[in-house]
């Protein structure tokens, strides 16, 4: 424990000694991780954002004439228990008539000519927010195929596009996050490699005066870890600040209502991920970079 403490202290002294290169490394690591963090956040948030749309989907199912009320009640109950469903509203034939007059006020007087309502009964389905559009779509399809249902009317036109967008962004997000993790590792790895390369003379002298491989390696590992750790801390701080600032800026410019873009959603998992990623990249980059300098 005490050994580790002195080793860490020595590493910090060493980092201070090679200030220029280490501050640069730190900066570059921080920014690499920042970019990674931004991307990660963005894909999380856009996904989150597109899911918000689910609550705007409304599906109306018209029943066949003379369907037993009990069957409709059963369906309603079943739907109410569905996790996707926010509300199910039943419109009897009369209620449908009232709705009709609301939508076409010019035609109100036509209806006076009927004794009973000429409209079919129906249910109107609304959905909870943050549900996957794909799931909602397949639920709607399913209900539409029931024998008691005569026809359906859904505002899925946009929803489908949003679903496509959401799916696309998710996939692109995975793809790009993968590339970005790779790039981050590549950059940090090489920064540390340059750092070590830059000190190859020191390594060779240490070997010549009888230092063991581990004696040489450990400070570099700790330094790599420290650089990665502080790099990710800086990246987290900057990311956090950005995420606090962007909404203020964005709202002032495009009058975003809080409800639409939930930018207040800052998942802490991003920061944890960044710090773990940064520290371990720093550590392992050092481990691998130093190997070639420990020959002969």
């Amino acid at each position, binding site marked *: 424990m005490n050994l580790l403490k002195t080793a860490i202290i020595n590493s910090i002294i060493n980092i201070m000694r090679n200030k220029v290169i280490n501050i640069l490394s730190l900066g570059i690591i921080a920014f690499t991780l920042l970019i990674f963090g931004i991307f990660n956040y963005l894909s999380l948030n856009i996904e989150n954002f597109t899911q918000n749309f689910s609550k705007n989907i409304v599906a109306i199912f018209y029943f066949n004439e003379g369907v037993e009320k009990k069957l409709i009640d059963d369906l309603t109950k079943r739907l109410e228990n569905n996790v996707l469903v926010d509300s199910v509203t039943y419109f009897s034939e009369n209620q449908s008539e009232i709705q009709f007059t609301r939508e076409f006020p010019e035609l109100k007087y036509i209806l006076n000519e009927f004794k009973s309502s000429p409209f079919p009964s129906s249910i109107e389905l609304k959905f909870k927010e943050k549900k996957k559009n794909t799931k909602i779509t397949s639920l709607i399809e399913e209900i539409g195929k029931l024998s008691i249902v005569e026809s359906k009317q859904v505002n899925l036109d946009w929803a489908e596009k949003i679903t496509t967008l959401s799916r696309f962004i998710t996939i692109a997000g995975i793809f790009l996050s993968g590339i970005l993790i790779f790039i981050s590792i590549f950059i940090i790895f090489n920064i540390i490699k340059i750092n070590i390369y830059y000190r190859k003379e*020191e390594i060779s*002298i240490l070997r*010549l*005066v*009888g230092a*063991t491989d581990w*004696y040489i390696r450990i400070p570099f590992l700790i330094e790599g870890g420290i650089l990665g750790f502080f790099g990710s801390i800086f990246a987290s701080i900057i990311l956090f600040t950005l995420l606090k600032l962007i909404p203020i800026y964005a709202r002032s410019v495009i009058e975003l209502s809080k409800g639409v873009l939930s930018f207040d959603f800052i998942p802490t998992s991003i920061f944890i991920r960044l710090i773990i990623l940064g520290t371990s990249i720093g550590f392992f980059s050092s481990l691998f970079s130093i190997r070639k300098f420990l020959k*002969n």
Partner: protein
Amino acid sequence: MIEFYHVYKQYIKNQFAISDISISIEKGEFIFLTGASGAGKSTFLKMIYKEEVPSRGQILINSMNLNLLPDNKLYKLRRDIGIVFQDFKLLENRTIYENVAIPLIARNEKKAIVDKMVINALTLVGLTHRRNYFPTHVSGGEQQRVAIARAIVGNPKIIIADEPTGNLDTELSINIIKIFERININGITVLIATHDNNILKLFPKRILRLDKGMLVSDIGIGGIS
């Protein structure tokens, strides 16, 4: 202690920096290695601590065949050897004190012991007053003496010094060789490459003379080339 068996070294094809050298050096000997510039003195010394490996032949240090020594055990060999490099090889970003302390710290010595031994070594070469300077901030001769201090600090079994007095005036040079002599009395093998005839004359020791990689003379104690 140090044995060469038909050792050759070619850096470049058909150019022998060392050519068929066989020699044996006993524990506690004090040896000068001399020869013109490019004769192979540094190469000879580098092969002893395995900075260079022979192209042909065997080298035994303490009966251990260097060809069979794996890289990750090299440090064991080098802890027994104190080296003064011709180009000093000081770490620019560490103070003189720290430079001299490296061999001890690399051996995990306790802080108090390190301190005592470093100050001791610096006193021998007359540089305690410069201990907190960085190598780039002292004169060439002072740098050379730091290199000497680092070589002797760890009580090595063998001391190898490649032109350790090249940047020192005669008086200081003599002092340094005297330090090596004193260390040698304790049974430590000393090997010094030098081109300073003055020193060769003043200190009658065994002299190995190289010429174009070949050992052209090996004159025993008291002999002068």
